[in-house]
């Protein structure tokens, strides 16, 4: 038997699917103009990696007009196959969350109130405290051996750091003499 299909047949007639649906059988309501009234939103899905732990689950971030409208697990990702933990599944709230803190908050020792600070003040304060703590705790020689270290500062990296950030952080901490270098990527 011949293996011709309606689609090929329509092509031969020079018709599109929609034209065939409208001019063919009684399938669409007479007032096809209604279709124009249906509102469509345009979006795009972009694949990326979850920003939390080191498992590196795949995400699809859906955006419309540069706004994130949904984040879901990527079903084709070889590691996670669409699954996400509760944190990954709420990735949407990283950008869209009214409760997200967007400025540095400072609580001075002995107080219970948080005060909003700007980044210049915050980074300067952190730098000053790192410097004073490191200088006060620095051990250059121990038991006749040069150690050049501080045990008063620790660094905790995160799985969200990329290779370059992790390299810089390690270099920086080694430069300060920090020996307690840890990360949570093996959680």
């Amino acid at each position, binding site marked *: *038997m*011949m*293996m*011709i*299909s*309606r*689609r*090929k*047949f*329509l*092509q*031969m*007639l020079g*018709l*599109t*699917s*929609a*034209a*065939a*649906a*409208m*001019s*063919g*059988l*009684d*399938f*669409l*309501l007479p007032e*096809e103009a*209604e*279709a*124009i009234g*249906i*509102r*469509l*939103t*345009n*979006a*795009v*899905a*972009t*694949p990326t990696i979850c920003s939390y732990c080191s498992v590196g689950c795949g995400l*699809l971030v859906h955006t419309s007009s540069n706004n994130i409208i949904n984040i*879901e*697990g*990527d*079903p*084709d990702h070889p590691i996670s*196959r*669409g*699954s996400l933990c509760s944190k990954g599944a709420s990735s949407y709230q990283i950008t869209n969350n009214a409760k997200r803190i967007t400025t540095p908050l400072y609580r001075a020792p002995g107080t219970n109130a948080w005060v909003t600070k700007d980044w210049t003040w915050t980074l300067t304060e952190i730098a000053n405290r790192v410097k004073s703590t490191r200088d006060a705790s620095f051990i250059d020689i121990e038991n006749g051996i040069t150690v050049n270290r501080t045990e008063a500062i620790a660094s905790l990296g995160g799985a969200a750091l990329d290779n370059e950030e992790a390299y810089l952080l390690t270099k920086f901490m080694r430069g300060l003499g920090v020996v307690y270098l840890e990360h949570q990527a093996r959680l």
Partner: protein
Amino acid sequence: MLSLTTLNGQKFIKELTKVQISWAEIIIQNYDVDHHYLDKLINEAQHLLLEDTLINISKQHVVNITMDIVKLLEIHQPKFKGDLLLLANKYDEFYEILLNGDDLSLLKWADKSNISPILIGYILDWILRPEKMALGKIVQPLLNDIKSWKSNCCPICNEPADIALLLKENGERHLGCSCCQVTWRYPRLVCAFCEEANPENLRYYFVEDAPEQQIHYCESCGNYLKTFDYRFTCEKPADLMLLNYMTAHLDVLAEQKGLGLKINN
């Protein structure tokens, strides 16, 4: 479900599918399934209908299926009454071309006989469908693994997918052939027509009042694929042909957006 398809149109497709399923069952009963052979064909990425020895349908079978379809058309599609009367006088010629002719000769014959070529196209599709559905039912269990069938074309009829489903469980995309009634796993971010894999060129529209209804399109080739996201609805996956016709408004909208001018290849 949001649809501009008439209730009569929906009823017609439901009854037509019922008839086709019953014919598919008869074909399966008379078919000695060689699962090993089918498995081999699928693994070798061979489209099953190209193996014309798989199922052979007799002329009587074709005649019976045609009569069932014409009966339903007479009841539900009175618009084609005149065409069906003309066809009734030329059944022998129709079967002769159907069984031994080709697509161009069928088109010429319809034109010469003053019978709507669109109607002939539909009838042709529906006559062939039970055979495709029978094969589809047999091979569907082999298609669920992403490694088993990687093509963007239907494993039965070799046509590009005409619908896609996003599954409730984890959003996997399964391409579907509404005619053969089979689905097979396919990556979400690969164009189902030109295999474009740059996600920046793969966009979609969704209906604001029914976000499960989507039009996925490729900016590289300009084709689109109607996609139904079952995570937005508690409905069970419908008969693909019914779903295809019930979402005909998406075809209209896609065309208005300048998509699909290559009519699915």
